[in-house]
């Protein structure tokens, strides 16, 4: 399964959910869906905005784990 390590990166960059949501242009509810592994797909556009604002690579956020 694909795990989204958004919490880890946000903690490293000391950025709150509200601030990140505002910067990448999505609602806090949608950011929460991403953080809680409820999302079924992530748009490249969203991933691009996350990476730009958290100054990281997609691999820092997305991780593959055996189920």
């Amino acid at each position, binding site marked *: 399964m694909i795990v989204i390590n958004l919490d880890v990166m946000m903690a490293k960059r000391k950025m709150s959910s509200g601030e990140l949501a505002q910067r990448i242009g999505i609602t806090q509810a*949608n*950011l929460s869906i*991403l953080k809680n592994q409820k*999302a*079924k*797909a*992530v748009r490249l556009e*969203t991933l691009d905005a996350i990476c730009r604002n958290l100054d990281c690579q997609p691999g820092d956020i997305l991780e593959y784990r055996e189920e």
Partner: protein
Amino acid sequence: MSTERSSGNIIRYTKIATIIALVLVVTGDVFGYIITEYISRVWAERSDTFAIVTLSVVYYLGTVGAIVVFINLYRLLNNMSKDIVFDVRNTKLMTIIGITCIFMGIDCVAGTVAWFGTIYMAVVCFFMMLVVFCVKAVFEKAIEMKEELELTI
């Protein structure tokens, strides 16, 4: 005329047609004893008690099924007019309609012991059941796609 307004009108007209059909079925229930006797004597050309009683039972069971179908169809259309389209509630209503069609089909098949003509109604019921279950499968797929789209961030 916009597509949204046109589909809204279609739903409204179908709701009116459903109410009229429901009223007709209830009226048919009230005069059921006359209708079944007419069917038995004129169409089936049988005036024995067995034929009249059997056709009466088949007729009344059939109208109960029709009432269930029309009520659930009205509820389905009502949901659609409230913009609740691809929803689990609608697929449940379709399941009820489909299962009722099966029962009505079986009821009509049973009616052939008195008059073979009911087999045509049975064919219509089973065909309706297939159509309803096909539409239900399409709705289920649409619900799945909608959920996927909603969870795409």
